[in-house]
């Protein structure tokens, strides 16, 4: 065999400039929205739910359809007629449609798709769709969703629990009984998402002659989803051609979630007979694309006196949002083999429940399941140290998997491929300046500051076993379904008639520089320069080699895809060596590939140009050596044998590679403002062999930024009525350069024995370690037992600020429930008109029209029911609403309860107010009034800051006008009116 190993040639492992960059730096990238569209392409916009939970009463699309430029308006019923439900990952009688059919289950859920000549017109048509709904009580909290009385999202499930599995490894009961300490922690991990700066994009076409679909989308994989889409579109797999653009503007897992829109746009293309393009906007993205799961975890450890953990007892309640959308509940099972983290813990009890709530469906997100697990596990390790009075480092050291134990089979089934955790940790402490950090903490505390140090040790899994998700099924269910396992990586290396080399892989990069690394790896294999190798990463399922594991997720590129490319290149090289050998009259084993030549080892003068040999199979196939087919094209499919299906004991090697990370950090909290500052952060990585140091650093630095966001800034928040409150980048806060601390990155390489190049994944690790590390530092700084993410100054205020009491005379406002957007108010005024006159006004549509703010019309539906069309707003923010007003329990002319709802494009609200009219001795009336209201919907998501005030203004205007009208003129108010109005508005200007 020729001896031209990658190490000898040496492109791999160097930080070469990226081949991607020249185009991207000059505005010549080819992202999905930069590609041309076929003639006649239509543009889609989506009407989305403004409710967390509601029943659809009617959808009238006639006005929207009539708008010039609109080609079609498709509702759930029309989509259902063309498609089938998306496959759901658990055995349960529940469907998952990409559009609402009978009910709205989360804010942002698609309700109708408008297809029009351009996006502006399509959005105009959205405004003309008349959607009538009846709000239903929502359930947002995963534990509340489990309660018997909780509103049920999917009747077929009979409740909100989609899956409940218990696992037992070793003998956890005995270990807990024998241990002197049982130490636990309870965690509610929040929702967040990596929000790529490029949003989703889809261009769908339908070929009626072939009954097939052609969909271009910035989808990232896994291509197991191809099967889900084909089944939803009711076509065989070969009638669904799925293509990806050359460039993609980031994903971090999130662009897996574009697939329901691929189904919607494909159906729209079929319905209109025209190509349909949709580019998601940021509001849509933040409300409804995809995000990580929020999870409630209770974790307990059986602990020896020296800090040694002998058993863990996990109880995880996973919130997947309103639909169990493929590949969920994968977030919960991705870590299944790694539930003991970096520690040698042999006994594990585990209960996994999956619940559905009125929030957006979840999906892939950088770290995928790791952050939720490690925040609990690493916070627990810190709690163990505090509880037992031990050094947190000593507790970590005592439990790490020992270096001599690799490959190490964890209690739950993972096979940890390689590592030396203790050495990596000690090196990090030494090279990262841990002693200096301890002194820094001491000095800061002596100066009266809040300063804490945190640690985290995690195992970072990569290259997912495509069978791990089947752990959600019982062994019996798995037997019926057939085994699922492995992770096929594919790569094709081909030679063209001029001897040029092209590499095609099904890796679907989203900015990671795959083309550069593949050029390095293949150039090394063939003795070429990277610039001689052309790498194509856009995927076309109709033409390219691919499999279900194709795509860009689970940090699989370096360990799996780059390895497959090396295998394909090596096969091609071996063939070319045999061709060259016959021409040079040498044995193939005496040849080497170097400097663009195939030459005799030890005699570089005896050489053939690489291109000449590589092109020979095209021009002169008759001259090939006996028994050799050709040397044109080699496709390698590589799947690691270690990735076996879950066994009867539910043990699963959920991932092929396991990197190691040890982090420590110093955090200071400003005693005045409670601002949290990460003072120093050190992260040590063992990601196996490093193929491109610059890119590895970029992955670590970028993952750290996401994790810092998760720790301190980012959260998808919902109000109690199901309204999303973080619908813009002004409220969903991601770190900018001013928020980023300096990051010290260290490496300790132990190559993986299981991957062709010895590499492991590296991009997700800090998303797993950093939130826990920062959380531990905050806990250390403030002596807290519980740390809730994201850690914000306002959250710390509850711990750090002295209790306050409202001044005398100021009633404490009823505390809003967590996340609830409650409005309360009351008021009083005296007007110069008798109660009877005021009473008449309340029941007279004509007068109501005059006093309801912004009313266009008021119609009396029954004696006590009114319907009004109004334009409401504050400042420039205006919207048209349909208001239903009901007068309850009237006691003429003394008291009445008003119940109202308002529905409009900007959102909706409802409330109840009680009004009493008390006659005064002088013939006037004292109006007393109190109300309770809630507003939500689109405005809540994009301008929550402004919402409460706006509602108060409108309610205030109503009563001001009532009083004015009752007095019969422009200057009605008598004593107290201005004060009443001010009080009503809630402000004392």
């Amino acid at each position, binding site marked *: 065999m020729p001896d031209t190993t990658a190490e000898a040639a040496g492109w791999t492992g160097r930080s070469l400039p990226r081949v991607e960059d020249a185009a991207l730096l000059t505005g010549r990238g080819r992202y999905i929205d930069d590609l041309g569209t076929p003639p006649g392409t239509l543009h889609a916009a989506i009407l989305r739910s403004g409710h967390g939970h509601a029943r659809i009463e009617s959808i009238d699309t006639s006005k929207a359809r009539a708008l010039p430029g609109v080609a079609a308006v498709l509702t759930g019923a029309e989509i259902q007629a063309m498609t089938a439900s998306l496959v759901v990952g658990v055995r349960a009688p529940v469907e998952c449609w990409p559009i609402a059919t009978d009910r709205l289950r989360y804010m942002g859920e698609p309700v109708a798709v408008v297809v029009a000549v351009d996006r502006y017109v399509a959005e105009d048509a959205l405004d003309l769709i008349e959607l009538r709904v009846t709000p239903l009580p929502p359930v947002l909290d995963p534990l509340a969703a489990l309660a018997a009385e909780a509103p049920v999202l999917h009747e077929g499930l009979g409740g909100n629990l989609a899956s409940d599995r218990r696992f037992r490894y070793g003998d956890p009961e005995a270990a807990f009984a024998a241990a002197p300490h049982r130490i636990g922690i309870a965690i509610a991990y929040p929702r967040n998402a990596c929000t790529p700066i490029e949003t989703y994009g889809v261009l769908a076409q339908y070929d009626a002659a072939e009954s097939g679909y052609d969909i271009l989308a910035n989808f990232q994989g896994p291509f197991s989803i191809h099967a889900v889409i084909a089944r939803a579109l009711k076509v065989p797999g070969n009638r669904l051609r799925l293509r990806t653009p050359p460039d993609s503007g980031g994903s971090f897992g999130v662009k897996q979630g574009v697939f329901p829109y691929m189904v919607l746009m494909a159906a729209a293309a079929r319905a209109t007979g025209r190509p349909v393009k949709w580019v998601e906007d940021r509001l849509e993205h933040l409300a409804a694309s995809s995000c990580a799961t929020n999870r409630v975890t209770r974790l307990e450890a059986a602990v020896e006196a020296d800090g040694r953990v002998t058993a863990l007892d996990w109880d995880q309640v996973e919130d997947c949002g309103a639909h169990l959308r493929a590949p969920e509940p994968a977030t919960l099972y991705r870590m299944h083999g790694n539930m003991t983290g970096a520690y040698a813990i042999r006994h594990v009890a585990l209960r996994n429940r999956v619940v559905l709530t009125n929030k957006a469906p979840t999906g892939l997100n950088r770290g995928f399941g790791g952050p939720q697990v490690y925040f609990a596990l690493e916070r627990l390790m810190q709690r163990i140290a505090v509880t037992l009075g031990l050094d947190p480092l000593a507790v970590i050291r005592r439990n790490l998997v020992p270096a001599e134990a690799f490959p190490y089979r964890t209690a739950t089934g993972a096979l940890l491929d390689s590592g030396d955790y203790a050495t990596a940790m000690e090196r990090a402490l030494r090279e990262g300046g841990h002693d200096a950090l301890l002194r820094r903490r001491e000095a800061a505390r002596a100066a009266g500051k809040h300063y804490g140090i945190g640690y985290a040790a995690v195992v970072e899994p990569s290259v997912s076993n495509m069978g791990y998700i089947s752990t959600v099924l019982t062994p019996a269910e798995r037997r019926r379904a057939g085994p699922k396992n492995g992770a096929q990586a594919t790569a094709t290396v081909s030679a063209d008639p001029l001897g040029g080399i092209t590499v095609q892989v099904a890796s679907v990069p989203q900015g990671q520089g795959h083309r550069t690394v593949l050029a390095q790896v293949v150039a090394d294999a063939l003795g070429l320069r990277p610039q001689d190798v052309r790498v194509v990463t856009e995927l076309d399922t109709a033409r390219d080699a691919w499999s279900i594991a194709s795509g860009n997720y689970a940090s699989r590129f370096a360990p799996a895809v780059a390895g497959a490319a090396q295998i394909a290149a090596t096969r091609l090289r071996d063939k070319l060596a045999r061709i060259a050998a016959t021409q040079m009259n040498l044995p193939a084993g005496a040849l080497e590939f170097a400097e663009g030549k195939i030459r005799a080892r030890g005699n570089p003068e005896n050489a053939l140009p690489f291109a000449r040999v590589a092109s020979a199979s095209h021009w002169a196939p008759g001259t090939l050596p006996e028994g050799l087919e050709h040397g044109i094209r080699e496709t390698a499919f590589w799947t690691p044998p270690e990735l076996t299906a879950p066994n009867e004991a539910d043990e699963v090697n959920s991932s092929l590679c396991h990197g190691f990370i040890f982090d420590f950090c110093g955090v200071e909290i400003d005693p005045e403002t409670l601002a949290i500052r990460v003072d120093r952060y050190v992260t040590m990585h063992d990601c196996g062999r490093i193929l491109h140091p610059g890119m590895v650093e970029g992955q670590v630095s970028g993952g750290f930024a996401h994790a810092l966001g998760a720790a301190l800034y980012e959260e998808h928040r919902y109000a109690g009525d199901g309204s999303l409150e973080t619908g813009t980048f002004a409220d969903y*806060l991601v770190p900018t350069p001013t928020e980023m601390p300096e990051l010290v990155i260290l490496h300790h390489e132990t190559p993986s024995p299981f991957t062709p190049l010895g590499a492991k994944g590296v991009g997700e690790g800090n998303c797993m370690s950093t939130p826990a590390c920062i959380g531990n530092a905050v806990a250390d700084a403030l002596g807290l037992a519980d740390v809730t993410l994201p850690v914000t100054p306002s959250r710390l205020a509850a711990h750090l600020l002295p209790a306050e009491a409202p001044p005398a005379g100021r009633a404490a406002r009823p505390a809003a429930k967590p996340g609830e957007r409650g409005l309360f108010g009351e008021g009083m005024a005296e007007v110069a008109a008798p109660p009877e006159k005021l009473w008449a006004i309340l029941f007279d549509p004509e007068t109501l029209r005059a006093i309801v703010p912004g009313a266009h019309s008021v119609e009396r539906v029954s004696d006590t029911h009114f319907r009004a069309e109004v334009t409401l707003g504050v400042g420039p923010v205006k919207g048209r609403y349909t208001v239903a007003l009901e007068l309850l329990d009237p006691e003429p002319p003394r008291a009445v309860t008003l119940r109202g709802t308002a529905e409009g494009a900007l959102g909706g609200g409802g409330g109840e107010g009680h009004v009493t009219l008390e006659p005064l001795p002088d013939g006037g009336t004292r109006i007393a009034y109190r109300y309770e209201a809630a507003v939500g919907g689109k405005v809540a998501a994009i301008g929550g800051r402004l919402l409460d005030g706006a509602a108060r203004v409108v309610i205030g205007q109503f009563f001001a006008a009532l009083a004015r009208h009752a007095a019969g003129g422009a200057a009605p108010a008598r004593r107290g009116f201005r004060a009443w109005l001010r009080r009503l508005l809630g402000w004392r200007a």
Partner: protein
Amino acid sequence: MKPAAFDYLRAATQEEALEALARAGGEARILAGGQSLLPMLNMRLARPRVLVDIMRIPGLDGVAVEKGSLRIGAAARQAALLARPGLAAEQPLLAEAMPWIGHAQTRSRGTLCGSIAHADPSAELPLLLLALEGEVALRSRRRARRVAAQDFFTGLMSTAREEDEMIEAIHIPLAHPGEGHAFAEIGRRHGDFAIIACAARVREGAVRLAVGGVADRPVARAMPGLDSPELDAALEALGWELEARDDLHASAAYRRAMLRRLGRAVIARAAAEVR
């Protein structure tokens, strides 16, 4: 996220702009830098029938000293004022606080008067105008008038501007010799809207404190001096009076606490400048 349709008028003169406002009967919005209005148009929160672009009106972007005040024209951009030589001497509070407004990429287009007209309760410029007892010059076809900042901001994104009026300029008094100023703000990140912002001015022993981000509009009060035993109680009372609300980014209790701390801190810094 595309705006609803509107007519666009590129006004060549102020007369044209005023005439358009008068004709539109509340259905027009002035378009200046657009940095507050365009997001609302894109989200279809605002749907004016006509936009009146005033940025081509000659002379409207002037910044000049006039009778002891800085007169800042309707088309003057925030970046232009920030780059004005001598601003730190003319009005140090503006020079200190203006870098907190948004980002360089929005200050480059955004106008001062536009931010005043928008009257966001968390924005810095309304707070500064109020802290410095500035005035807003309004003009319509009917009349021209000046409104004190104290009376201009009437509520959440609501002002004393009538629908046919445009802000022609704002007037911000120059710093008096011997007075001290300070500004402080807490936001979640750099460039975010304020959770709370405080501006203090100390002049001849009189302390004026303005607070933004807490109530539905910026609020200014005379405060006891730094050495007064009454100061803490006054800050405490102001915190409750402003009826701070819980929102996504901070609790009411946090806002009240920060008002006590930040309020005292800016008063201390302003007082220190005097000495």
